[in-house]
């Protein structure tokens, strides 16, 4: 059988073909890849017609989206990279130390540097420590790095600017974060729960 006539295909999908003709087309679509693809596309269009067009974006939102792009903002971005030393603004061990005799096996710390806050979670397991965390506010591409003179591990941020560094032996480390041209450093952090 040659390819199905387009109008016949349309009538078939509209359920307007008599039974016998409908069965013939159905059989043909099973063996003819070209017509099968054509029918598949038509079905997609008909499904689209049933669900209706995608919702319109409010005009005010469109205006805001257009305003995001400013060539001068891009020039600002090309300024030399900035570097900050992060300062500790919260440490849940400060409370835990007063309340408990045993050290907990995790620790949460919050650092601030420039416009960024870095939420760090230290998880201890025997002699190892795993540093995880997230950068706020909405962060861009970047990475977190933990290092000593002998060891260096680097991981890229995830979609929500979260990161999980590989476990390291307990000890003293430096931490470095690169966030959209900004370098943030925690020069010395003791990873130990004993």
């Amino acid at each position, binding site marked *: 059988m040659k390819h199905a006539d387009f109008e016949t295909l349309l009538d078939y999908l509209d359920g307007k073909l008599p039974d016998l003709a409908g069965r013939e087309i159905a059989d043909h679509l099973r063996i003819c890849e070209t017509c099968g693809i054509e029918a*598949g596309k038509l079905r*997609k269009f008909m499904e*689209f017609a049933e*669900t209706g067009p995608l919702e319109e974006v409010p005009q005010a939102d469109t205006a805001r989206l257009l305003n995001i792009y400013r060539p001068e903002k891009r020039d600002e971005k090309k300024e030399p990279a900035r570097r900050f030393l992060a300062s500790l603004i919260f440490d849940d061990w400060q409370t835990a130390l007063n309340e408990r005799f045993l050290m907990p096996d995790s620790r949460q710390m919050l650092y601030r540097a420039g416009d960024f806050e870095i939420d760090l979670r230290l998880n201890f397991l025997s002699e190892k420590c795993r540093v995880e965390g997230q950068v706020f506010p909405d962060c861009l591409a970047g990475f977190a790095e933990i290092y000593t003179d002998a060891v260096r591990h680097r991981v890229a941020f995830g979609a*929500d600017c979260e990161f999980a560094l590989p476990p390291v032996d307990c000890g003293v480390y430096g931490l470095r974060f690169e966030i959209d041209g900004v370098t943030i450093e925690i020069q010395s952090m003791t990873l130990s729960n004993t």
Partner: protein
Amino acid sequence: MPRTDEELINACRNGDESAWEDIVFKYQKLLYSIPRRAGLGKDLSSDVIQEVFITLFRKLDTIEKPEFLRAWLMTTARHKTIHLIQKETRGRPISIDDEETESAAFEVRDTAPLADARLITLETENRIETALAGIDDRCRRLLTLLYLDSDEISYAEIAERLQIPLGGIGPTRARCLQKLLKFIPE
């Protein structure tokens, strides 16, 4: 001839504001639909697309494969939507004594619409819309009246509105659909 995503990104990198406009108009509806279909309200959905485009702007210089812009935008919108849903859900107070509050708290925005298959459907719908916008005016009007208009309009009325002979609607519809199908992915 519309510019490709790669060309648009490169133009944005070179300070071409019109390229940014093209990207916004090309993708805003698609991206807005992702949080909306997941059940987020208009305000939160606006936040999602705003964040997506802010992230795009900031990452313009670091996007490694601009040809995959569509996929990148959709993935980013999906992540941000899920993030917002989780944040919203965590933030709601739950009282175990109050069944209504509890059920409301678990009336989580459905993340199923964010599954890959559903996003592909959304993407197809977006391509069909774009294709509809790209075909000639007469075809677009005919297909809109036949398939997309919420009012049931008779063939006679369509023939009168579009100045097409009544008997010509069927063949014209077929020709217009054939034009459209060229732009619809398999």
